[in-house]
């Protein structure tokens, strides 16, 4: 998350100066301060732990090679986050793509009159109640993983990483209109997957 708590310690400016001077200890400090959080970011995109670790490693090396690209005043954590997402996306892209599952059957279905063929019911609890159980988080993550990749990526970038429509479009090579449509469908499809577990029994 781009606006998450700042762990750019110690003062970014002096760390940056030491990094630019090529100081080994500064590099290690940066790695230790950020690696775990960035691993969490990479895992969202890459189900394989080895791939996630590779992406984090590549991100740190890329960051180091491109220190000049870091804008003074920006947060080191935000900058590293973006580089890690890019590394993870690159890794995904390098994987041989299987033909993608269609998302259609996860979208709400309607009859000729535009009426839902399955009438949505209430859920057994509100989100904040459901979230009290850790297994719910796990189930939600697994459900996100079931979304077809092109939808999952848009959902992760927009809703979880907090990228805006333009940035997401640029990075995924899509039009902004396509990003909006995919985000809409991805959310509906995710709702369908969650409803299968959380909807109350029909009375």
């Amino acid at each position, binding site marked *: 998350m781009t606006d998450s708590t700042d762990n750019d310690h110690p003062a970014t400016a002096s760390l940056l100066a030491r990094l630019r001077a090529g100081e080994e200890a500064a590099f290690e400090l940066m790695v230790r301060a950020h690696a*775990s959080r960035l691993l969490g970011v990479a895992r969202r995109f890459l189900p394989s732990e080895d791939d996630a670790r590779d992406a984090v490693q590549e991100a740190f090396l890329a960051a180091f090679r491109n220190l000049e690209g870091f804008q003074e005043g920006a947060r080191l954590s935000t900058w590293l986050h973006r580089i890690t997402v890019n590394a993870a996306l690159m890794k995904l892209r390098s994987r041989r793509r299987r033909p993608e599952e269609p998302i259609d059957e996860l979208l709400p279905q309607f009859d000729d009159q535009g009426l839902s063929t399955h009438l*949505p019911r209430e859920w057994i609890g509100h989100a904040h109640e459901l979230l009290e159980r850790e297994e719910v988080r796990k189930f939600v993550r697994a459900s996100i993983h079931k979304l077809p990749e092109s939808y999952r990526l848009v959902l992760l970038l927009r809703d979880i990483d907090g990228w805006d429509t333009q940035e997401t479009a640029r990075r995924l090579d899509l039009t902004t209109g396509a990003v909006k449509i995919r985000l809409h469908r991805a959310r509906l499809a995710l*709702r369908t997957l969650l409803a299968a577990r959380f909807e109350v029994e029909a009375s």
Partner: protein
Amino acid sequence: MNCREYVEFLMAYVNDELPPDQADAFRQHISDCPPCINYLETYHDTLELEKRAYEEQEALFEEAPENLVKAILAARGEDKA
């Protein structure tokens, strides 16, 4: 507006992007369609669930895994060479 159109406009409504007359039609539809009220509520629940689904997982890893740190430092050594 019917239920299909309602779902189609849902995200735009939530983002406050619907023109006033469509937003009115949207509210009009929920006022007498209980299933669509349920749909809107659980859509909001979905957003909250997905946004918070990764919180715990990240909190678990406050300290960087040592073998990952070592691998990165080693790779950096090779990268420079």
